């Protein structure tokens, strides 16, 4: 539970808010590269941390993320012509490059140096791991790019999905670090009917069915925390699921074959973008794995109107609030605990999107199994308050700290510390020097 004032502090992300400023100290994904592949293609409308932006790829393939509004008369640059190295506003012809530098103002006298004094607000970008990232913080605080291992492996070892989540970013992230719900929301009623390419240990369903009240441990780390859930199997076997939370909003959840993770990026206070990655540290994903995890599956972006009427380009799942996530009560009785014949993220969204858009945490009722959620909130609140008082987050400058992998394993060890030590190389691997960015 949180007091309303703390809930406000931790959920609101617009410019000038404490949590919004904390987000702005980190590189954030804003759009998938595949959603803006063509040089001189159509700009993509975004809203990130409450700011309306356009992303575009110029003639040379470079990506820019600029304010959606032309600095001249604030016409929306989504309608701009993307041509010859820049974005030209169709209202009066002002043209800007990917950095926001003004290249041409045809409406001003030829001798004028006005264009040298005008800029379109914009942010530095990088393309890594199949995503376009932006740094939206103060220029003098710009950190190195975080060493996400999944973003460094060859492109055929990873699939990326980017989609809309229609609720506040925090309740989405809280679901990602909550291992207890796996025993319920994502469970099949017949343990033998698991997908053959399931990423978890072989007897995953038996373990989570048998022990629905895992023993939980949260260990604070430089990057956030590592979180272990232990389920008892037989007399001498324990099923451990390890997740990482990385400040501010990345989770890397368990897997022993391919590894899943997600970065939740606030669109505004009531909507978020989910950038999911599923990857294998050592080999290319099979076609079957890529299809099973590639949730975009070739769907293009579509216009989506936010509550205030502003339109962004995004991808909305066909299972959504408008159709009750296609819940099937027969399936609920006979096959799936949730009754939702969708992916785990769709089951997750059915829960988080049908809370309030911004969950009122003064009304919730937590138990001791919610320790990870509690620890995360407390850390974020402290970091946001510290930043408001001038204490910068040290993690932003520790690019190496982002090298983590979720993991699940059956172990004879009952002690968190023992199993963590035994599998440290899987959970926090060293740098891969031969990897290439895709």
């Amino acid at each position, binding site marked *: 539970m949180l007091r309303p004032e703390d809930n406000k502090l931790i959920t609101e992300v617009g410019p000038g808010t404490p949590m919004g400023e904390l987000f702005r100290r980190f590189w954030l994904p804003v759009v998938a590269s595949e959603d803006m592949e063509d040089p001189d293609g159509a700009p993509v409308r975004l809203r990130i941390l409450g700011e309306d932006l356009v992303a575009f790829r110029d003639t040379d393939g470079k990506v820019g993320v600029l304010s959606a509004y032309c600095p001249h008369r604030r016409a929306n640059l989504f309608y701009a012509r993307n041509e010859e190295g820049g974005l030209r506003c169709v209202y009066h012809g002002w043209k800007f490059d990917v950095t926001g530098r003004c290249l041409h103002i045809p409406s001003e006298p030829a001798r004028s140096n006005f264009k040298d004094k005008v800029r379109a607000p914009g942010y530095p970008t990088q393309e890594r791991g199949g995503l376009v990232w932006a740094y939206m913080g103060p220029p003098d605080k710009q950190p190195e790019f975080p060493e996400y291992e999944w973003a460094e492996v060859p492109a055929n070892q990873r699939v990326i999905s980017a989609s809309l989540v229609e609720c506040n970013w925090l309740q989405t992230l809280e679901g990602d670090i909550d291992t207890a719900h796996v025993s319920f929301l994502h469970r099949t009623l017949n343990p033998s009917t698991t997908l053959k390419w399931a990423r978890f240990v072989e007897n995953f369903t038996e373990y989570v069915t048998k022990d629905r009240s895992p023993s939980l441990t949260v260990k604070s780390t430089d990057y956030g925390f590592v979180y272990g859930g*232990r389920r008892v199997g037989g007399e001498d076997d324990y099923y451990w699921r390890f997740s990482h939370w990385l400040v501010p909003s990345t989770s890397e959840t368990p897997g022993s074959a391919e590894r899943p993770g997600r970065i939740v990026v606030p669109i505004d206070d009531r909507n978020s973008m989910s950038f999911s990655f599923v990857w294998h540290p050592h080999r290319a994903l099979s076609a079957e794995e890529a299809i099973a995890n590639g949730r975009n599956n070739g769907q293009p972006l579509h216009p989506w109107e936010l509550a205030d009427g502003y339109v962004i380009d995004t991808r909305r799942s066909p299972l959504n609030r408008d159709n009750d996530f296609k819940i099937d009560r027969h399936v609920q009785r006979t096959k799936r605990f949730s009754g939702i014949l969708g992916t785990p993220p769709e089951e997750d969204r059915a829960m988080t999107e049908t809370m309030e858009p911004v969950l009122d945490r003064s009304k919730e009722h*937590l*138990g*001791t199994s*919610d320790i990870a959620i*509690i620890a995360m909130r407390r850390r974020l609140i402290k970091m946001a308050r510290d930043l408001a008082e001038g204490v910068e987050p040290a993690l932003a400058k520790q690019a190496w700290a982002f090298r983590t992998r979720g993991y699940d394993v059956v172990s004879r060890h009952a002690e968190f510390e023992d199993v963590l030590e035994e599998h440290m190389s899987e959970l926090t691997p060293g740098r891969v020097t031969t990897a290439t960015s895709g």
Partner: protein
Amino acid sequence: MSVCSMINAEANGAGGADPWHIVDVETLDVDTVALVIHQVEVSPRADQLAYRESEIDALWTLADMAAQAGDTDASEWLELLWQAHDHVGDGDRTRALAALTRLRDRLVETERRRNRHNASM
């Protein structure tokens, strides 16, 4: 004590000094609150205090359920638990302990009063 020793709930009431142990919170009573007080006393670190916050959250849940069931004492318990929760969150163990101790004392009084009432019936 290791930094990340495994937590489980089998040792409630053991009286040891293990800040990574989570108290089983199943009832809002004097004994459970006393166990949580003990855990706050042995939890100096912020990550340990997150464990304590989870226990206080669970106590608050029980107090709120009591309030919703019409227990007239519960509003004071809730306020004391809010105080303990916020002080633990701020790392102020002294004030958190003061709030929890007051809660424990109020629960003692309530139990006595209710026992007298039951005996007189």
